[in-house]
Every structure is written in C-alpha cells, then in structure tokens.
C-alpha cells in the first residue's frame, strides 16, 4: 500500500490520456458485462437442467406437434418413471411487447415433473378443478400486479378459437415460486384440457413430452428406446436430455456464445493494443524518472512491479466501473432474459479478464523499464 501514491502519480502524469484510456476500458467492460450477462442468462437453463429429465419432440421440428396418444406408450418404456406434456402457446398481454411465456399443461403431471416449482396444495387442487384456471410465477404476478382471483386475457399469436378469435381468458388460481432460481418465476401455466377443447385446430396433439427417468445413467438408452417406438410412424420423435434440448433450443436462436465471444474478442484485442500503447508512451516519457527510482535503490524487479501495478490499477478500476455500470443497466433486460441481476460469475470473470489484460498490456513496458540502464537513462541515451 505504501507504493500506491507512487503508482497513482505515475498513472495520472498525463491526465487526459489516462482519462480517455480509462474511459475506453470502462466501455469495453460495460459491453463485457452486458454481453456475458446475456450469454450467462441464455445458458442458465442449460446449466440448471435436470439430469433425470428427457424431452421428446418431433424429429422433423421442435414446432411440430406430437399425438397425445404417445403419452401412454412413452410411460410404458422400461426406465421411464413418469411423463408430462406441454405446448407452446405464444401469447402476449395487451401489447405484443408484453410477451408472456405461457404453456398449456396437465397440472398434476407437469408440476410432479418439476418439483422445483413450489405451489401450495390447495392452489393445485383449485387449479385441477378450475377448467380455465391458470397458475403463474411469482415474478410474472408481480410484474403485472396479478393476483389470485383475477381474470387475465391473453392474446395467442398461434392458437385461434372456433369463433376465429385469438383472445383467451384465464382465471388465476395459483402463484408458484421457484426459490432456487427466481428467473423461472415468469411462466404462465394453464389447463391443457381447456386449451385442447377450445382451440380450432391441432386437437389431440401436444408440443412436447417431458419424461422423468429412474436412472440418469440410462438416459441415452431410454431416449433411444422412446424414439424406436415411433420409428417409421407419421410422428417420429427425437428424445434428448433436458440439457441437450436446452442447447439445441438456444442454437435455433443462434450460437450466442460464439457471437459474444467473437465480439468481445475483437473488443479486447483492440483494447490490448490501446492500453499497451498508452503504457508504452507513458514509459517513454518517464524513462529519467524510472532511472531515478533505480538510483534511489529500487531494484529492477521493483520497477517492473511498479509499472505492472500501474497497468493493473488502471485496468481493474476501469473494469470495476464498467461492470458496476453493467450491473445497473442489466436489470433493464429482465423482460427479455428473465434474469433480474447480472450473474456474479460474470463480474468475477470480468475482473479476471481485467487482470489478464493488465498483465498482457503492461508486461512489455514493464520489461523495458526493468532493463533500463541507469547511466544511459540519466544521460538521455
């Protein structure tokens, strides 16, 4: 700590240059925070995937429906413990911008397969008895101020009723919580029976099946056994683990990880040269000062450490400011990503990157400072 004033003084020798370098690093880390946060949010479902669950979808496309009759056959496959089904409802509330993740499901089956969703037993009972009943996540309820007893109209972009309208009304009968991951509290579940009866097409079909297996080590074999059941039928299936399913679902949007890595790679590559150049310029201007430090008794390694410390202070402070700004701005993406705050691991990785950046940008000038010959430097040679 006693060297901090010396490090700080060296850093701010050219205030304007240091300020603009700092600013560019801040912006780079703001970008890092937002993009990595988005990436982490997208991958959250993959990381949190349950190893006991398989997902069976149509082999043709995820958007193709499967017959409801497959359920009994799937449950009869050895190794399968239980199965449920769901469909994509594709709805919004009042405004197309207010998208609601909504799914018709069998209440008991679905919530049995997803024990991470906590719903009071009496609310489950009411839901089972209420044909138009819907159970919503606590986050969604908070967002729109919905409460039990409310009538909620949703407009589906896919499903029409026989009268040609796409407006569906539901009665909120329960609010579930997902204590392990609050980001999961944004879904809207309602009775498949009501949906199947009221829709104008696609009756007797479901979007996909979720299968719980008895032993996760048999996932591949059980999945293959399910797919064999429907081989050469009109509705061939593709069964994957929940993790594989999440990954393939994300790839339909695009390889987010690759895009984020490519953008950040380009940004930090440029930043490396910018910071490195600033440090090198700063070093060239201070050669006599560094020679004086050596004259006073600072060792070669001590001078190397001082220059590296300058770069480290610059990069880490800028990274902290940039990541703090990202943490403030990130919740604005809550509606898109369903994640309420910047994941802490993004901040951790960001700080790690800032240290690496400092070492990479600071090492060449620090090495040169270390090798300075006092006599030559003092003589201006």
């Amino acid at each position, binding site marked *: 700590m*006693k*060297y901090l*004033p*010396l490090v700080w*003084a*060296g850093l*701010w*020798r050219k205030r304007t240059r240091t300020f603009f370098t700092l600013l560019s690093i801040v912006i780079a880390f703001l970008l890092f925070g937002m993009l990595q946060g988005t990436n982490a949010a997208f991958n959250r479902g993959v990381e949190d995937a349950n190893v006991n669950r398989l997902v069976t979808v149509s082999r043709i496309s995820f958007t193709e429906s499967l017959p409801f009759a497959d359920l009994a056959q799937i449950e009869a496959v050895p190794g399968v413990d239980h199965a449920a089904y769901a469909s994509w409802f594709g709805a919004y509330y009042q405004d197309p911008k207010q998208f609601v993740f909504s799914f018709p499901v069998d209440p008991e089956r679905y919530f049995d397969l997803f024990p991470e969703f906590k719903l009071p037993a009496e609310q489950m009972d009411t839901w089972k008895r209420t044909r138009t009943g819907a159970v919503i996540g606590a986050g969604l309820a908070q967002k729109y101020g919905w409460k039990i007893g409310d009538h909620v109209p949703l407009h589906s972009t896919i499903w029409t009723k026989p009268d040609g309208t796409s407006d569906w009304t539901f009665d909120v009968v329960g609010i579930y919580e997902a204590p392990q991951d609050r980001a999961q509290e944004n879904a809207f579940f309602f009775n498949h029976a009501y949906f199947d009866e009221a829709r104008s097409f696609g009756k007797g079909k479901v979007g996909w099946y979720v299968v719980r297996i008895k032993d996760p080590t048999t996932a591949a074999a059980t999945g293959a056994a399910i797919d064999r059941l429907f081989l050469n039928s009109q509705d061939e299936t593709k069964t994957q683990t929940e993790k594989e399913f999440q990954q393939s679902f994300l790839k339909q949007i695009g390889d987010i990880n690759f895009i984020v890595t490519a953008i950040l790679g380009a940004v930090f590559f440029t930043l490396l040269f910018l910071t490195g150049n600033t440090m090198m310029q700063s070093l060239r201007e201070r050669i*006599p*000062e560094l020679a*004086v*430090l*050596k*004259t*006073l*008794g*600072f*060792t*070669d*390694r*001590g001078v190397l450490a001082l220059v590296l410390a300058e770069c480290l202070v610059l990069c880490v402070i800028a990274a902290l400011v940039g990541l703090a700004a990202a943490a403030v701005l990130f919740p604005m993406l809550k509606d898109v990503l369903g994640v309420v705050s910047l994941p802490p691991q993004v901040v951790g990785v960001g700080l790690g990157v800032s240290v690496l950046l400092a070492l990479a940008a600071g090492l060449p000038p620090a090495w040169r400072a270390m090798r300075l010959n*006092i*006599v030559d430097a*003092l003589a201006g040679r």
Partner: protein
Amino acid sequence: MSAIVTLKNVVKRYRRGKEQVEVLHALNLEIEQGDFVAIMGPSGSGKTTLLNLIGGLDQPTEGEVNVAGERIDRLSGSQLAKWRARHVGFIFQFYNLMPMMTAERNVELPLLLTPLSRAERKRNVATALEIVGLTDRARHKPGEMSGGQQQRVAIARALVADPTLLVCDEPTGDLDRQTADEILHLLQLLNREQGKTILMVTHDPKAAEFASRHLQVDKGQLADAPRVAA
C-alpha cells in the same frame, strides 16, 4: 580519519558501436569520511563515470571499488540497488523529482524501501524538509516551486535515509549564482555540521571553492589537487 571510498586500479571501458573506449585508466583514489570533494575536469574527462562508479550506478571493467566497507564491484544488480538505498544519496543537476508528487512525497521515496512505519517516514521527511528550509512547501509539487527550491527538495530526498555518502552531479548547474551559492552553503553545512561525506562533480570553480578537497580528472586519469583549508 578512515577512508570511506577506495578505488584500486579501476578501469572503465564502454562500447561505442564497434569501438571500445577506455574512459578511466587504472585509477586509484581514497576519500576519507567527512570529506567534501569537488571533482572537476573538462567535458568527457570521465568525472561523471567516476562518480557513477563510486555511487554504485555503474560497475568497473577492471579494478576494485570499495565504498562504506563493501566491495561494490562484486555486487549483483539487485544487491547494488539495496546497497545504494542504504549508503548513497544522489543529487542531480536537473533535480529529477517526480512531477506529479508533492515535495514530501518526493522526499519520502527512499524511505519506501525501508521497514519504517508510515508515522516514522512522515517524521523523517519533516526533519529533512526542515533541514533544507522547506517545511512550508511540503505540499507543493515541483512545478509550483523555483529551481532552487526543487534542488532543496532533491537534497532533502538525498538526506532523508541518512546515507553514508552524498553524490552530487553538477548540483548547481541549472541555477543562478545566488541560488547556487545558497545550495552550496547548504551542502557545506551538511558536511560540517552533520559530517556527511560529499562528492560533487562540477564545472564551476566557484562551486568547487565550497569543497575541502579538489580532484582534477583529465583524460580518464586523476590529478589530486591540493587540499583546501576548511
């Protein structure tokens, strides 16, 4: 009095391109503790090289350099750095202060290499600044001070760690006559009152008059001038 500096058959050669240039030729010298030595000579005669060897900034090509009881020609780079921190205070022609740091922070620099606590460092810095008469300028940066004041700060920095030897390279070369005399009086005072051994390279005969001993360096060789009465 015992010799604080002993040079035996010291040769210094530099490589300039493809050529080897011998700057000092088999030089022998003894400087006693408490001496105030002025080293004079024409440009390129080797006086700064001699000063650099005694101050541990450079190593001889041949010969022995014994300063403050240690063979410094045998020390490694890092050993020499630590030795300098313990034994030598440097004063340069152009002050060489850190422009972004206040006078007290500049003076504190050599103490950062010691195990002294912050309070002890602060106390020593205050004492050094008091000796050079700059207590009231402690919080000023070099750019806010005159040349004479900056050189006083440099002297305080050289003094603060209580070195065995003060090494001054043209300490008044950038100052007007009056300010130069003030600085030289201060150095003389440090020599007489505090017993500091001072080696000063100068071109200025008037500056040399403040020293108790004159060394004349010419073409890499030494001609000991007569001792001046204190």
